[in-house]
């Protein structure tokens, strides 16, 4: 049975197939309106979320399925000390697939170890967020026509930004993708991404501190939020939070066909004035995220069905 814990759980070919399916769902939604009739998704959210949880639930409901779950740890048995392993063993009897978000890194891996149903990582601490990455890939592919031969600037919190780690993990598998990593020194890309994913694979990347210095070279600008919840000290967070703000002045130095993406939520790192620029594509990402999650649910349910028949 297949789980989705990291973007690498799908090969390049499987990812292409999944993005094709997401695209097909987008253009012919009625064809998929009942393909999950009678199926249930459990959304186990130990950490607050708006987009991701609602997006998973919308994805399942778009296909005729139902949803159950909890939206914060305080309304689950975690407050009574129940382990992730026990929770998933129980939930496996209630639902057909589950999406789990947890503040601790690796929690979805533990869930997958003990689960009787497919597990989707809906974000684990500062580690991975593979379905956001699939939405990012779908958006880039739609905008550029392919996932190769471009320069992407990833800006903001690269240390704790799980969407960043997942995105780099996925993009290094495509040819001629150049990375410009823009962050303050304290929030530079985390060690395993720099060493194991970029350096060891001979991927071209640069680490810089100023967005203004590099914005004219970019084909995609991926902005991220400095995440308050990942800091152990409030002072540290306050010092970092206003480091990068994209406004129309900075954007005036960018290429005419550079696109701006953001996994959302934003705080203040993209000025509201940028929203009306035709290069701002972050709300399209939100829409694509639902189609991608529909495709993930269908693909994993199919894999579970195949595994059960063996």
């Amino acid at each position, binding site marked *: 049975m297949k789980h989705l814990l990291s973007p690498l759980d799908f090969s390049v070919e499987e990812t292409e197939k999944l993005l094709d399916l997401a695209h097909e769902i987008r253009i012919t939604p009625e064809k998929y309106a009942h393909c999950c009739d009678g199926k249930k998704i459990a959304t186990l959210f130990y950490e607050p979320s708006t987009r991701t949880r609602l997006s998973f639930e919308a994805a399942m409901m778009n296909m005729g399925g139902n949803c159950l779950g909890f939206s914060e740890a305080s309304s689950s048995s975690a407050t009574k000390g129940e382990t992730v392993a026990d929770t998933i063993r129980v939930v496996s009897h209630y639902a057909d697939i589950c999406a789990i978000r947890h503040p601790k*890194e*690796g*929690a979805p891996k533990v869930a997958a170890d003990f689960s009787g149903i497919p597990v989707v990582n809906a974000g684990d601490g500062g580690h991975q967020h593979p379905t956001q990455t699939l939405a990012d890939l779908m958006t880039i592919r739609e905008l550029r026509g392919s996932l190769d031969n471009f320069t992407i600037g990833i800006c903001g919190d690269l240390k704790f930004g799980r969407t960043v780690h997942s995105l780099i993990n996925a993009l290094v598998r495509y040819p001629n993708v150049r990375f410009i990593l823009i962050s303050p020194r304290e929030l530079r890309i985390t060690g*395993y991404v720099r060493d*194991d994913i970029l350096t060891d694979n001979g991927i071209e990347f640069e680490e810089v501190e100023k967005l203004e210095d590099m914005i004219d070279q970019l084909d995609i600008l991926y902005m991220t939020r400095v995440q308050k919840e990942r800091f152990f000290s409030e002072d540290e967070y306050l010092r970092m939070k206003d480091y990068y703000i994209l406004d129309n002045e900075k954007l005036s130095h960018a290429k005419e066909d550079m696109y701006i993406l953001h996994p959302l939520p934003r705080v203040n790192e993209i000025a509201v004035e940028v929203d009306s620029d035709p290069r701002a594509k972050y709300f399209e990402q939100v829409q694509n995220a639902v189609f991608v999650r529909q495709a993930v649910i269908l693909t994993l349910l199919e894999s579970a069905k195949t595994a059960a028949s063996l």
Partner: protein
Amino acid sequence: MLNIGRLNEGIVLDHIEAGKAMTIYRLLGLGDLDCGVAIIKNAHSNKMGKKDIIKIEGGMDLVDLDALGYIDCNITVDIIRDGVVSEKKDLTLPEKLTNVIKCSNPRCITSIEPQLDHIFHLTNKDKHIYRCRYCEEKA
């Protein structure tokens, strides 16, 4: 020259880098064993100048070779039977370590669920890099 009694049955961990014997003693949990354990520090070595040696009375199952390979795969492991070296074990970097070291990442799931094994995988053989199975933090 310091003399420690000959082993009749047991294991000798030789060519330990000088000063590392106590680390190995701790990581292998040798303090928990009932059998005799001798630690020789700063012994003369033609090859290394100075070295540490650990002698353990008893069977091979007392030593976790994977853990030892992780600590230092240049250590020599001699199996002693009837007072003579009957076998030499080669150490290699293990692909997987279970409960040898703990994940130090405070954001890792292992930090709040004590029943989970601390598992590390070798991700870069040349650089001897191990990463946590759950959060991918470097050991």
